[in-house]
């Protein structure tokens, strides 16, 4: 599904190198987790994959189903099936959440040559999906993420994901700021989307999320590289011992 090869990234404005040769291969239907110390480059990786400005790729490639992502506009990447649940979801005053969702869904359908959903069709689907995520009608009406609590913002990210039905989902610390019940809700939302060949890259600091969303593969990122790859047990090791041993081992 997603194949990242020797990805090197620096900041556009400064001479600061953030990613130093990331290699990552996620097969269709697989769930991979990335853990790693603060500032190791996890969010940067997700931003670079989704096409945010401000970064410069100096080497490497990222293929989504064989298509080079790094040359595409952000909207084209989304239409090709990439989705990023932001670590810090963005507030957009003046744009209603519902309008935002419908615009996004129909824009992607249009790009893919599919018929746009009518207002009625859209409403039916969005209500149903919002309900399972316990997002009430009021949150759908309000401006995107404005005045939402931390947990509400994260649930709203998952709602967008559920509506857009991407092939490759990147979740950047979707568990942070969630209470125990919300974590369960969000995980169920994610698990409901598993299957159909859909792949996930779950960035997290905590094993707890991975109890709900069981990963096939766990990667450890440090200083802009994947320093270790293993099974779910690797997450447990981090939970128990922290990163010190892993970092020393990689030296």
């Amino acid at each position: 599904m997603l194949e990242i090869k020797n990805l090197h990234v620096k900041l556009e404005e400064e001479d600061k190198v953030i990613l130093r040769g990331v290699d990552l291969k996620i097969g269709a239907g697989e769930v991979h987790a990335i853990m790693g110390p603060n500032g190791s480059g996890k969010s940067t990786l997700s931003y670079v994959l989704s096409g945010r400005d401000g970064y410069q790729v100096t080497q490497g490639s990222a293929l989504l189903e064989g298509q080079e992502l790094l040359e595409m506009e952000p909207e084209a990447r989304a239409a090709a099936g990439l989705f990023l649940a932001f670590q810090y979801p963005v507030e957009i005053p003046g744009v209603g959440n519902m309008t935002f969702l419908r615009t996004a869904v129909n824009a992607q359908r249009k790009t893919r040559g599919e018929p746009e959903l009518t207002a009625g069709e859209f409403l039916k689907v969005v209500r149903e999906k919002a309900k399972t995520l316990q997002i009430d009608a009021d949150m759908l009406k309000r401006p995107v993420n404005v005045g939402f609590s931390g947990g509400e913002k994260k649930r709203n990210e998952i709602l967008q994901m559920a509506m857009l039905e991407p092939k490759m989902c990147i979740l950047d610390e979707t568990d942070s700021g969630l209470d125990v019940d919300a974590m369960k809700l969000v995980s169920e939302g994610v698990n409901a989307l598993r299957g159909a060949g859909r792949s996930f890259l779950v960035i997290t600091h905590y094993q707890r999320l991975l109890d709900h969303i069981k990963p096939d593969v766990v990667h450890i990122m440090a200083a802009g590289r994947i320093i270790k790859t293993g099974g779910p047990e690797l997450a447990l090791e981090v939970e128990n011992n922290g990163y010190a041993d892993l970092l020393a081992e990689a030296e």
Partner: protein
Amino acid sequence: MAVAQAKQDALAARIAGLSFDAAGWQGALRTEALARLTAMGLPAKRDEYWRYTNPATLVAPQPAVGTATTEEPALFTDLDCLKLVFVDGQFDAAQSDPLALEGVSLAVLSQAKADIHWAADLFGQLEARGQSPVQRPLATLNTAFAGEGVLIHVTGKPSKPISLIYRATSAGCDAILHHCVKMEAGSELTLLEQGTAGARVNLVTEVDIADGARFHHIRAQGRVENDSTLTHIFARIGQEAAFKSFTMTADGKLTRNEAVMELLGNDSSAHVAGAALGEGAVQQDDTVFITHAAERCESRQVFKKVLKNGAVGVFQGKILVKQGAQKTDGYQISQALLLDGDSQFLAKPELEIYADDVKCSHGSTSGAIDETALFYLRSRGVPLRAAQSLLVLAFLAEAIGEIEDEAIAEAISARLQVWLDWHEQ
């Protein structure tokens, strides 16, 4: 003295080609206005009130001759309205609906020769009141020389809005229009305006709102590039009465909209809002003066400007709270979205307060489009242009939100979208 003389000379040159009509019930009023005008002369660039906008094209003897019109999308076409059409500054009866609407009596200024008592008490009166503390000579010139306009006497609650439609067909048309609206106690009216009345427009609207009456005004100026427009709306607002005015200005070489409102009765409100969009050699100026002269009144000024490619936006807004106007609630916001580094927003918010128990807030900002929000939208698959449009409309939302009627607000939003489509990067 030299300055004063220059203003007098400008006035003499400006009015040389205008015909002065001293006949009928308007005669005495016009004569009086001409005397006031002569005492003031015309405004000049150095005047404090014209600090940000050069009045040169507004005071010039002749309007700049440009192309007559560009095709402008008609608005409110699905709305049931009483339509009054003005072509090149003259009322066009053939294209207009009959002057009949329940709850309203209507007359056209050029044809209203017989004495209309209410109009004789209003014509030029609010304009004259609006000359202090700031002089507005071009409004006085309008009172003295306006040949056309509509006189609207509202006694009830008409079932539909009155829609004024302006068209310009001849190049260099210099339109001077003067409307009067008298709202009797408890009455209601929605007044719509759209179009470009001429290559140069000087429009004055006087609105007298009696106790408990409600006046809604929505104006859409989707202008051609090379015209200049000056509008004044003067309102006197009685107890528990409401005044609400929204203006959309799209392009136009120079547009200055002045709104002068006096809250004279307790518990009344005045809301004035604007959404302006300009690209290129465009100057858009909103100048507002609200006087709170009674208790527990509320005023709102919400102005948003989207500027691109060298366009200049100006906002001058003043709230004057007179002694005794306790519990005043005044809100003022003016914001510009600069779509590039060439555009400019000049704002002068002012508060002058002589009462102690008041709540007034004002804010003014200008900034670029939010890149983070833009990326967020694009990451969800919304193409760049559509994402930009969405954010521009979101920026304008608070101003459009001042329009009470949903269908009208939607029509305005659609019109703004047209501008965005025409002016894509």
